[in-house]
């Protein structure tokens, strides 16, 4: 089953953040709670943890892309 992971809203006025690093590559196994990517917004870098376990099937953005809260970021293949 596929599960989409979305960009969290990190502060009320957040309109977008820069996805500055993927910490897992496509094909990697990801456990819920493991850091999946980093996002920078207003001088704050947040490590975002996966909210489900599975295999990272697709990174939907490249490093450096601006992503809005709620937008899908990754697709996990879950059991």
């Amino acid at each position, binding site marked *: 089953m596929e599960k989409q992971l979305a960009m969290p809203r990190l502060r009320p006025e957040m309109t977008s953040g*820069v996805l500055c690093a993927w910490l897992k590559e496509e094909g990697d196994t990801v456990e819920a709670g493991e850091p999946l990517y980093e996002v*920078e*917004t207003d*001088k704050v870098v947040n490590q975002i943890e996966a909210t489900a376990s599975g295999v990272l099937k697709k990174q939907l953005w490249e490093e450096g892309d601006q992503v809005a809260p709620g937008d899908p970021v990754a697709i996990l293949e879950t059991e």
Partner: protein
Amino acid sequence: MIYIETGSADVCYNFGAEYYFTVEKPLEDTVFLFWRTTPTLMVGRYQNVLEEVDRAYAAAHGIRIVRRMSGGGTIYTDPGGWQFTFIEDAREEDIQFQRYIAPVTGALAELGVEASFNGRNDLTVGGKKISGNAQYRLGGRVVHHGSLLFDTDLEQMAAATTVDRYKIQSKSIPSVRERVTNIAWHLPAPMDAEAFKAKIVEHILGPEGTVYVITPEDGRRIRELGEERFASWESTYGQGPAFNIERVGRFSGGTMRFRLEVKRGVIRQAAVSGDFFATLDGEAFGNALAGCRYERDAVRAALEALGADGTVYRVSAEEMAKAIVD
């Protein structure tokens, strides 16, 4: 509040200490560090060193270049400035700066310096920046760190961060240039850097504060973390944004144009064109450069391994390497 004296002016040791007390040894209360560095350029998490720093100037003046884990732009720090760090559990999802900056403005006010908070999470005096602030958050913990310009060499700061950006394309987060000033110039009575530190630490720690002393075991691990996570080439260059760069070398034997795609600090693709005369074609050069670090020595070694010396009319591998990387 728990104060920890790192006793080091090595930026990597101090970054290592931040990481250690964030991830490996969280203490039961907010940790506060107050430290300084030898001359250092700290680039933000998602910045391109080449777009922010005059590397030749830094090398000539013994300035270290390191990457922070926090966001924002490049800052220059030296023994004339102080850095402060707060580490604690992230209390809520909301990102806050005011919580960490208010104690600092309070301490400055006590010394007679009225600092205000601008929209970019900086502190200013008379409209000029004295402090930049940034954070990183991981595993439910937050690290807030900020700089305090006390008596920093502002000329060196400007010189080290003035850079010819060539033809670089990237999605990196650029620094924002702001006018700066030193706190020491605004104190009603002269004070040396150590006395300033003592006052600020005393104010922020308050009567309830305690002190944690780094054990030899802590120190060993902090040094390891500093080396592994902050002092390496991978950290400074290998973790930056991908970029494309175009460089042109004009030699007595002709012009060579290099178009390079660099990711994680390594050349992924290279195209070479121009009106040079060579017994090797552009593709051979491109293949030789792909996979090598975007560094002068690595590029020269790759060109020498290809046998580039003598294959291009009146252009040596050394000259090509100089044209490709500063």
